[in-house]
């Protein structure tokens, strides 16, 4: 069940109504309704993997209790290891089995052997990367005595499977979400409206920006040799907005949906394309994942302590692992390594925390220096996105090679209709810029207008969604339209 689907439009108000009708009754009942709804939501993707989700959740639930009750450090470590090993084992099998087999086979072929390994037709369970990390953060936090385990299995199961964040994050922490689940929530009209607004903005980003950019990014990336360098640059730009619109749009919908039920989830994107350097970009992009890797991998490895070589090593490790988390392909690993390469100078020079506040805070426009910093950072990011999007490292390098040719200075060769997408992107950037100091772009930028005007603006966004969403009808024969 996608967030932008008719099923979800029916599902959400039904659950919302039942949930708040139970508000005066037992909290346990309210949480149970959300839990059932979450498992139903997940089963709509693929009912077979409900059992895997349940098993993984049960494993971490009991592991947490056992780790807490174990008297010796050794016993705690053994149970932590079991939980981590099984969880990562499932992840490795479902997501990375074929990648490892293929890579190993290629290596053997390059050494002159002729291997014949069977690839498995493995279906990737939706959201496995996310809920695995939820569970891991829980058991690791218990091991380090940051939290006590919960003995309420409903609450824990809900923490892992809460439907707004189940399939695409944000990756929540038990320290942040579990206390909210354990506490009674009070209905707030203003929070519900705020949640709906964030959902609306998320849908705009996903349906209008991401899906329309995807159309042209796919055309260009799938046949890059047919296009001029300038068109390939446009393709990279389209992909940059596709991935941002898609991912941050989904996060906005998740956060807005959770707010409807009285929950505040972790902010996942904080206007990353307005960053002035790569370090700032990584503090603003997929925040829940970066902070997870920082807390559970980077810091245990030593973090920024120790000499420069340790800093470089640790930075490369987390970015490569982060790249690998995104997908089972060498392109993601190269993408991660590239970002590590971009960020390392600022870590070594200790300038990685120069830009903490949002750019041009309190001002309408950035300074000339800030503007160039933003453009440079965005350009580096887009360059790395080429590897993220390409099917193979070879295709990515070929794509880049085709950009830096004489045809880079030719006018891009795209249909008139792509002008529409560019106009939409410009509109989008303006709104995001004006709302950059808020939690999400349209949170407060229209607050000065009277309510009827605000509702006209929100209706206008809905209108744009209706006019520009992708459709799947068979091709028109007469093209009279």
């Amino acid at each position, binding site marked *: 069940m996608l967030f932008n689907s*008719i099923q979800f439009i029916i599902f959400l108000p039904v659950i919302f109504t039942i949930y708040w009708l139970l508000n005066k009754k037992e909290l346990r009942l309210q949480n149970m309704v959300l839990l059932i709804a979450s498992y139903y939501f997940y089963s709509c993707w693929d009912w077979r993997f409900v059992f895997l989700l349940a098993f993984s959740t049960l494993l971490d639930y009991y592991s947490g209790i056992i780790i807490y009750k174990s008297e010796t450090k050794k016993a705690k470590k053994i149970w932590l290891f079991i939980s981590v090993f099984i969880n990562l084992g499932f992840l490795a099998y479902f997501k990375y089995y074929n990648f490892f087999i293929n890579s190993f086979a290629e290596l053997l072929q390059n050494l002159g052997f002729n291997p014949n390994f069977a690839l498995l037709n493995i279906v990737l369970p939706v959201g496995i990367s996310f809920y695995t990390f939820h569970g891991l953060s829980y058991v690791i936090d218990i091991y380090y005595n940051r939290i006590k385990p919960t003995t309420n299995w409903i609450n824990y199961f809900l923490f892992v499977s809460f439907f707004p964040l189940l399939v695409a994050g944000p990756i929540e922490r038990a320290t942040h979400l579990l206390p909210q689940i354990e506490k009674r929530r009070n209905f707030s009209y203003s929070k519900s409206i705020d949640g709906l607004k964030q959902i609306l903005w998320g849908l705009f980003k996903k349906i209008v920006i991401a899906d329309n950019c995807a159309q042209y990014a796919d055309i260009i990336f799938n046949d890059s040799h047919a296009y001029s360098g300038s068109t390939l640059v446009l393709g990279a730009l389209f992909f940059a907005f596709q991935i941002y619109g898609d991912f941050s749009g989904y996060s906005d919908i998740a956060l807005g949906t959770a707010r409807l039920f009285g929950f505040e989830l972790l902010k996942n994107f904080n206007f990353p394309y307005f960053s002035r350097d790569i370090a700032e970009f990584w503090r603003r992009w997929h925040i829940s994942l970066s902070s997870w890797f920082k807390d559970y991998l980077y810091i245990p490895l030593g973090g920024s302590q120790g000499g420069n070589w340790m800093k470089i090593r640790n930075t490369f490790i987390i970015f490569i692992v982060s790249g690998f988390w995104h997908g089972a392909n060498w392109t993601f690993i190269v993408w991660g390594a590239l970002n590590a390469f971009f960020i390392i100078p600022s870590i070594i020079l200790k300038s990685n925390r120069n830009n903490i506040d949002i750019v041009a805070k309190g001002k309408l426009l950035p300074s000339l220096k800030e503007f160039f910093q933003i453009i440079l950072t965005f350009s580096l990011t887009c360059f790395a996105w080429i590897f993220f999007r390409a099917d193979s490292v070879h295709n990515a390098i070929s794509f880049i090679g085709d950009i830096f040719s004489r045809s880079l200075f030719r006018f891009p060769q795209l249909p*008139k*209709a792509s*002008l*529409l997408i560019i*106009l939409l992107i410009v509109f989008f950037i303006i709104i995001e810029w004006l709302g950059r100091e808020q939690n999400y772009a349209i949170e407060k930028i229209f607050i000065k207008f009277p309510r009827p005007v605000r509702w006209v603006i929100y209706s206008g966004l809905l209108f744009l969604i*209706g*006019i*520009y*969403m992708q*459709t*799947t*009808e*068979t091709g*028109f*024969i*007469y093209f*009279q*339209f």
Partner: protein
Amino acid sequence: MGEFAPSFLIKNLVYKKGGIGFMDKRLEEVNKKKNIDILFIGSSHVYRGFDPRIFAKQGYSSFNLGSSAQTPIETKFLLDKYVTTLNPKFVIIDVYPSILSNDGTESALDLISNSKIDSEIIKFALEFKNIKVYNTLIFAYYKQLLGNSKKNSYKKTPKTDHYITGGFVESFKKYSSNSKSNKAVYEKLQPSQKQLQKLDEIINIFNNRNIKFLLVQSPISQLKYNSFKNNSSVDSVLHKKGPYINFNEVLKLNDSLFIDDHHLNQHGVAVYNEKFIKLAMDILTYPSQKVKK
């Protein structure tokens, strides 16, 4: 469009009153028609393929209710709306297999743009889970409320096309398969189950009302016809539905009788309709009679 922005900027709003098939004129005319002998219905092969004037010379009153890219989904809607008043003795349905694999959205947009928006067309539009259809429906209703739904546009209609009373569109343009733009693209025809089901529902209407009907495949250019890999298997599916003639097997027409690779020009229509009257009217009058080649 012009009212909000150029068409390419309004992706999911495809309102076009008039247009290539003159659907507005046809729908205006059909409301005044009653008790005809023959009703022709189906895609553009119908409104470009059956000339009511030729049938009138043989003593048959007829009306041509074809429309661009019309699929059985739209055919059923039109029959439900008009079959009682038209009260035809015979119905000829063109079943171009390529159209049967279409989901009907294009034709639905054409109908919505050119029809009066009432509960029937709203119910019809809701069958489509497509935002283009919903947006166009809302816009068409808005135009109707403002009273300027009568403004039509024939900007994209070729100047060689003329609307003829009775629902026919006449053209004398000639086509050549030798031109560089024409290439045979070999494809397999895959009629969709949904469209075939609608065809069954249409046939039930005829059976319930005792209306004689004939399914036909109008002739298309030989290059185009031969580019389909599975003509015979599609024929066998359509034969099971009821009386059916594939005129591509009966007539091998020269390219000069077409305006493009699948629509007849007026010369082609004359040849086709003459053969049709010889072959088909016997079947309709005496259904047990087999097809003569």
